[in-house]
């Protein structure tokens, strides 16, 4: 079934590359050290790449939000408020035990349901909470002159940075889990193939 249109696949590929560059350069800046080679990329290069990549990410994010609304793709993200936690909980239970007992997917993929409830919840949190926070705090760090000097006696710059790295860390954790859960398709590479070809391979019966 053709589930992933070209614009989503292109955006997804670009977004993946940008996020990976941002994570590597971000870690390089955070753990930079002159006495050992803990840092992955030289600090000056890491700052430059991080800034340039971040600006492209912002443009890419705006494109995603607009296209999501225009194309109607946003409907796949609509969360059922009544079952806000119970449905994702059911999906987690399937991943933790159900799938090892031969149970069927509780929320199989269809043209009407591209994401299971757990995917919906995490994608919404990442795309509409974590990413905007990372972007806003990132602007505060890129332009320190617009960051508040002190908040409750603590440097606003520190608070902005802690928010930025905390969200960045959560997105890194999400990325690891996201890549792993993408091996849980019909076959380990089915879902990866789907994001290249656009066709979702149905789960094994």
């Amino acid at each position: 079934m053709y589930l992933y249109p070209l614009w989503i696949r292109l955006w997804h590929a670009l977004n993946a590359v940008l996020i990976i560059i941002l994570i590597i350069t971000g870690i390089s800046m955070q753990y930079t050290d002159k006495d050992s080679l803990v840092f992955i990329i030289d600090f000056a290069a890491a700052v430059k790449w991080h800034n340039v990549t971040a600006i492209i990410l912002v443009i890419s994010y705006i494109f995603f939000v607009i296209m999501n609304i225009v194309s109607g793709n946003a409907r796949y993200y609509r969360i059922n408020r009544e079952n806000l936690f119970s449905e994702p909980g059911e999906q987690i239970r399937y991943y933790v035990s159900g799938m090892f007992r031969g149970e069927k997917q509780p929320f199989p993929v269809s043209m009407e349901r591209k994401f299971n409830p757990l995917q919906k919840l995490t994608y919404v949190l990442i795309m509409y909470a974590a990413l905007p926070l990372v972007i806003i705090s990132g602007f505060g760090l890129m332009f320190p002159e617009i960051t508040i000097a002190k908040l409750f006696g603590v440097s606003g710059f520190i608070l902005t940075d802690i928010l930025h790295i905390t969200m960045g860390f959560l997105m890194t954790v999400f990325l690891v889990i996201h890549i792993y859960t993408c091996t849980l398709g019909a076959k380990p590479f089915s879902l990866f193939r789907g994001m290249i070809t656009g066709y979702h391979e149905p789960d094994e019966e």
Partner: protein
Amino acid sequence: MKLLFAAVLFTALFSFGAEARALSGRADSDPVDTLAFVSPFMEDNESCFKCHGQGKYEYENELLGTTVKALMCPDQIIRREDFYISNHRSFSCTDCHSADYDVFPHPGELRMELKFNCLDCHGGDETYSIFSFEMIEEDYMRSVHFKLEDEGFSCWKCHDPHTYRINMRDSRNLKETILYDNNICLYCHSDYTRFQLLSDREEVNFLKTHDWLPNQASHFRSVRCIECHTQINDSILVSHLVLPKDRAVKLCNECHSKNSLLMTTLYKFQSREKRRDGFLNGIIMNESYVIGANRNAFLGTVSQAIFGLVILAIVIHVIFRIKTRIKLKKG
């Protein structure tokens, strides 16, 4: 969704709610209590300040019987408000200058009056041993500034004895301390007329020579010129060994790292005085934030633990998947 919006709004407010003082690089601090101090020589000094204390002075031309108003040479102006908060505020003008200055017009030979150097008074004196003036002189004599002594360079070029005040040791606001210290350098290095008195070099636009520095304005507000342009000396609080420009610090990692150079320069005094507070190089954070140098130890441990648990969970999940697959194959 309302909660989400409120969180974003809150972040936006604290990220963009710029304050004027952040932009100006100046912040509030308690001024030196000048009201409490009354110089025992105030009356005597006033005979000098009445002409040298402001831009305009007056004198009687006895031959013509008129009052003449004239402008004071800017380099000869010493403002009372600056002098009486300076380190030498308790001095009488004639402690250092000839008593012959009482005569007006001043005798011409006084132009040749020898000026005291810092060490003339402070050298070998136990009272000032904590400042290590002798070591400062050793540093200075190896610095690029010392090479200009024949051209007229001296301690006074940076530390005007009429207005200089101890800065870092009394610092209550690091941003102001940085501004004060950097202005000492910029007094000559951003004023080519003054610069020409000591050097034949062409005019240097220091903004252009520092254009490689990201967030230039933020760096200028947050660190002193001497952080990068002097050689570290652990024995004295402020290094006076100004290096040639090609030996200045240019590697970001020198400051942006766990073993930040700033801990032995800008934050040396405070880091000695105050203990760390859970943050790596926490003292830096009292006034600013240096990416790479400040890391929260707690957040670091928590994030590593979370990441480790996620990887562990994935590994366990993979093992169970393999076991299930083997079991299914066996039938």
